């Protein structure tokens, strides 16, 4: 008797386990949600505080909005929280007119009583600008993006004209200012929430349990394991198509791949085994060419690279195609100059120092090194999007340069030591790169090669060229696009002639997703977005087939 009972119980259990008795009329939980396998934990939930890609992936476009955004193929500035804006003739006063219907998140820890207004905008920017601000030093007081673009030196002050009008007063005209406001880092926080936290004496919470206006809010965060987002039901734009978004934090590359193949995550960041994913009909591998550049820089203050002929010779002797095939596994665009071809300022006619070992050898003879010389290349110890394996790249360059008689020693230090000693100028040449924060071309020209940056920040070639510097300065002072194009074309030509560095490749960012997931997630720069993402109904065969077709077409 009892045996039979057990058997029938087992049968019921099995049936309920295997049976596909879904309510086909209603969407299941998994059809209304998306699991994203991300590569790491965010450093903070406030993108003002960090420039790491992982952090902006998990925060910027999910939790927050910015005053203005980049839209479309050409990255034109478009309204967001600010429904319009006005720039005075001298370019020094910029007025933003805010929307009146922007709701903040309502969560377990905070219920907003008002919609977004000028106070929130003032709060968000004054926190960064004003060292006396009660929140300036909360969570460390470091605002790396804003420090990088010298925001505090540029902005005189931010004024509230009325409840829905804000004016930025600049010390000088800067045509990249608006682009900076549209980046992932210039997000708007809630002043009301901050006030409440200050009263409760827990100001740190503002970056741990965030409140924003974005399409999702945070429901749950378990360090190193998962982030759970819910849809913001009162989002001022069309609300997100999915109800729940889960970031499954999986730092191991193989576990991300396993979860993707086993369909435990719908979307996976930075996948490995591209071939295997491409083979599967239910998965889709996609990539965007990021706005970045990986390059070989020369220390122009040190012999022999203080001689531009030597720099040109070395540039000519390096086979970039071979590097792209090996180090980037052909998943990168060939770089002619520091600016990617997708930028509006890119000049197609810029000449380049292509692979030509014979000419390199003759240039070396002219420069007075017929027998070649010895040099070192500093290779970064960590993989970055713009250079996945610097040591291998250095070894390839070593082999190339051997052919023209130059002996290369590859040097590598632990990452922070590497950067520190690089800033001290101990190197002869180095492999590094740059990822753009926004699509304005200035972000490349100024950060990598300008004189001011050669002293303090990111120009490790220590190259300082007066004409180049004037050109990029002039380009910032005008807002006439054609004029800016001309200036930047000339600047690119100077880089070609002077060869302070050799741009190697613009890499791609990869992502894999299930074919059921529709909508744009990746963009050329900045964090991922899930606002427009939806899941095709599993029962809707036609949608699936369409997805399949799309895949074939690509």
């Amino acid at each position: 008797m009892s045996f039979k009972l057990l058997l029938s119980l087992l049968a019921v259990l099995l049936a309920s386990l295997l049976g596909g008795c879904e309510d086909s009329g209603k969407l299941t939980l998994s059809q209304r949600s998306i699991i994203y396998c991300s590569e790491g934990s965010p450093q903070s939930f406030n993108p003002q505080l960090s420039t790491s890609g992982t952090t902006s992936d998990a925060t910027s476009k999910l939790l927050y909005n910015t005053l203005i955004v980049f839209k479309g193929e050409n990255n034109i500035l478009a309204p967001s929280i600010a429904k319009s804006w006005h720039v005075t003739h001298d370019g020094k006063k910029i007025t933003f007119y805010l929307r009146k219907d922007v709701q903040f998140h309502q969560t377990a820890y905070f219920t907003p009583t008002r919609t977004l207004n000028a106070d929130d905008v003032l709060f968000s920017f004054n926190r960064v600008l004003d060292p006396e601000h009660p929140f300036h030093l909360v969570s460390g007081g470091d605002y790396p993006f804003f420090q990088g673009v010298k925001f505090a030196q540029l902005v005189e002050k931010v004024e509230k004209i009325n409840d829905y009008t804000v004016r930025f007063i600049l010390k000088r005209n800067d045509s990249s200012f608006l682009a900076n406001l549209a980046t992932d880092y210039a997000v708007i926080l809630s002043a009301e929430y901050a006030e409440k936290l200050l009263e409760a004496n827990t100001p740190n919470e503002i970056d741990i349990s965030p409140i924003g206006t974005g399409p999702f809010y945070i429901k749950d965060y378990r360090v190193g394991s998962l982030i759970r987002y819910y849809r913001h039901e009162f989002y001022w734009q069309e609300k997100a198509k999915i109800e729940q978004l889960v970031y499954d934090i999986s730092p191991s590359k193989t576990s991300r791949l396993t979860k993707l193949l086993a369909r435990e995550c719908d979307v996976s960041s930075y996948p490995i085994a591209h071939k295997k994913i491409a083979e599967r009909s239910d998965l889709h591998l996609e990539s965007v060419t990021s706005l970045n550049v990986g390059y070989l820089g020369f220390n122009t203050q040190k012999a022999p690279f203080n001689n531009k002929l030597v720099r040109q010779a070395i540039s000519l002797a390096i086979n970039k195609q071979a590097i792209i095939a090996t180090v980037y596994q052909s998943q990168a665009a060939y770089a002619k100059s520091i600016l990617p071809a997708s930028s509006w300022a890119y000049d197609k006619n810029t000449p380049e120092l292509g692979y030509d070992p014979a000419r390199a050898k003759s240039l070396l003879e002219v420069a007075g090194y017929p027998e070649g010389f010895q040099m070192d290349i500093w290779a970064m110890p960590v993989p970055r999007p713009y250079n996945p394996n610097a040591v291998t790249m250095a070894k390839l360059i070593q082999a190339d340069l051997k052919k023209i008689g130059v002996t290369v020693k590859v040097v590598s230090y632990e990452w922070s030591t590497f950067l520190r000693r690089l800033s001290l100028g101990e190197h002869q040449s180095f492999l590094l790169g740059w990822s753009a924060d926004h699509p304005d071309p200035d972000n490349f020209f100024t950060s990598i090669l300008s004189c001011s940056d050669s002293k303090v920040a990111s120009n490790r070639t220590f190259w300082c060229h007066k004409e180049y510097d004037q050109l990029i300065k002039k380009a910032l002072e005008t807002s006439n696009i054609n004029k800016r194009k001309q200036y930047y074309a000339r600047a690119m030509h100077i880089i070609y002639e002077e060869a302070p560095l050799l741009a190697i490749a613009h890499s791609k960012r990869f992502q894999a997703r299930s074919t059921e997931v529709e909508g744009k997630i990746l963009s050329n720069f900045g964090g991922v977005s899930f606002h427009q993402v939806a899941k095709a109904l599993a029962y809707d065969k036609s949608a699936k087939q369409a997805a399949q077709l799309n895949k074939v077409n690509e």
Partner: protein
Amino acid sequence: MLTFTLRRISLFIFTMLALTLLSFSLSFLFPGDTVINHSGQINATVTELAKLNEAYQMDKNLLNQYGAYLSHIFNGDFGQSMASQSPISAEIIKLLPATIELSLVALLIAMLVGIPLGFIAAIKHQKTSDNIILSLAMIGYSIPTFWLGLLAILLFSINLGWLPSAGQISLLFEIEFVTGIQFIDILLSDSPYKWQAFRNASAHIVLPAFVVALAPATIFIRLSRAAMIEVLAASYIRAARAKGLNFSQIIFRHAIRNALIKIIRHVGLQFANLVTIAMVTEVIFSWPGIGRWLIESIYQRDYTAIQSGLLVLSCFIFIVHILTDFIYAALNPLARGNKHGS
């Protein structure tokens, strides 16, 4: 029965004493300061250290120190994890139920599969099916767990896509932590997706549970086969046959009951084996249990966690062992009769 109980309890107490003595001495054997190994407070200030030294009576002799250590343990204070700086007892309470859940399900599978197969082999003693079952058991016993786990993921998760490969339940479901045993928590929760969650959790446990169950199942096959052969050769079976009972009556009414009693005795022993296998399996299937936590602690040189984790785990296994002994004694009057000497 009273003597039996007293005996088991005294055995339990002495074993526990030996275990705590071992874990106490580990603090001295591990590198670093003893009191820091005890408490796990690596960032303690001078005053905090002085307080700790007093609490663990470090200035007195070893016996006093051991006493202080014991009193900490009895108060549920296992110190804090050196890696995460959170109390170890809290971490264990969160993780142990997941391991218990996995082990119990695996044990159930091992018994449900292994015992009937063993009986069949015994009934068909020295025939083809007996040989097949025995060789399968041999092969199953020889397969290393980690290899089997990876193969299972490759086949069932990646190639066939039938079952998930990682975790206890899909991250989409929010199940509040009550008992820690996922299935019970799901039933207790007021989530509108209860049954979806239940099905999902069941699908998640299938692969790891079968992987854990394989080795014990093969042992159960051999045990039950041997027990059944012995029972079938007993004179009361021959008597039953002579009385004219048919085959199924003999097997179901007489043979199985008597053979089962012999097997139950080994369940406790097998459980220890099973938990060891579960620890490896938890790592492969990212199962959030104590085994994975313990192995991570070893990687991170988290001595306090290793020490307390071992203590709790061995204590748990020992309790299970004693419980099965009681069940065995309750079922089999002969075992209680040991007091007369045998």
